[in-house]
């Protein structure tokens, strides 16, 4: 004959049921985070990509709305320089944006940089051949949270944009 022994174990059925409920909610949040990341709400992706154009269409900026702290990113500045192909291009980047980032490199390289009251003015030579100039600013954020930027074509329009940087 087999003897029945008492099992001394600290089980707690009501706690376990609560744990399973919380676990299911946690899994739903988990899946939601992965879907949001695929969509681009937690970094680069389709919903992250954005562009902003100046009212006079002289300037537009392509950027990612959501970025990661210290991850290299690119700001693509498109300048429609039709009316100004005899002068060098001068772009002003707002100081508040420059305070949050570290610029890794600018393509093409500016020939001159000068300080202004609320930003830095970068000067690029014009070859006169192309009407649309593309300038790539490679950078990484050194702050996290909401970051506002502004790029202005001296003698033309300006564009403002916002980026959220995850820690």
């Amino acid at each position, binding site marked *: *004959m*087999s*003897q*029945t*022994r008492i*099992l001394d*174990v*600290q*089980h*707690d059925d009501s*706690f*376990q049921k609560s*744990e*399973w409920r919380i*676990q299911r909610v*946690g*899994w739903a949040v*988990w899946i939601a985070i992965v879907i949001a990341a695929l969509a681009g709400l937690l970094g680069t992706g389709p919903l992250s990509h954005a562009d902003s154009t100046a009212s006079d269409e002289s300037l537009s900026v392509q950027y990612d709305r959501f970025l990661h702290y*210290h991850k290299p990113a690119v700001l693509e500045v498109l300048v429609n320089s039709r009316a100004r192909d005899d002068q060098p291009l001068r772009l002003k980047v707002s100081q508040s944006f420059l305070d949050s980032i570290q610029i890794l490199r600018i393509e093409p390289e500016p020939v001159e940089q000068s300080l202004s009251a609320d930003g830095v003015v970068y000067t690029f030579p014009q070859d006169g051949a192309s009407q649309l100039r593309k300038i790539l600013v490679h950078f990484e954020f050194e702050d996290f949270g909401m970051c506002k930027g502004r790029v202005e074509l001296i003698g033309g329009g300006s564009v403002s944009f916002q980026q959220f940087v995850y820690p």
Partner: protein
Amino acid sequence: MESILRGAATYLFVWLIFRLAGKRTLAQITTFDAVLLLIVSETTQAALTDDNNSFTNSILLILTMLGLDVALSHIKLRFPSVEKVMDGVPLVILDSDGLKQDVMDKERVNKEDVLHAARELQGLANLEEIQYAVLEQTGDITVVPKQG
């Protein structure tokens, strides 16, 4: 300060994710589980150090995470309810009524897992020789054989 906050946030996040993943997540150490664990630790390391490979940063991170672990073990001893939340509770998955299939389904345990533990730990051949099987907080299955 950043190292301490980073260490504490990583500790809490890793705890949360493994609690959500369930008891059995890393208890079944297959070759793939072991590799996955290594990948998770590598990824965590990158987030922890954030290019700061200084000796001071490493020391601060170790102090923070081991310190949290020791502090929590004291709190768990004093407050059993905290231990339940942090570590979960053991679950009886086989008793005199037989296998508790609903509990096993929720914890992703099957009959083969119970038999495996019975063979490995007690040298038992079938379910009839088991009086109790318990899924422990660690994710391991322990078995109490019938006496007779």
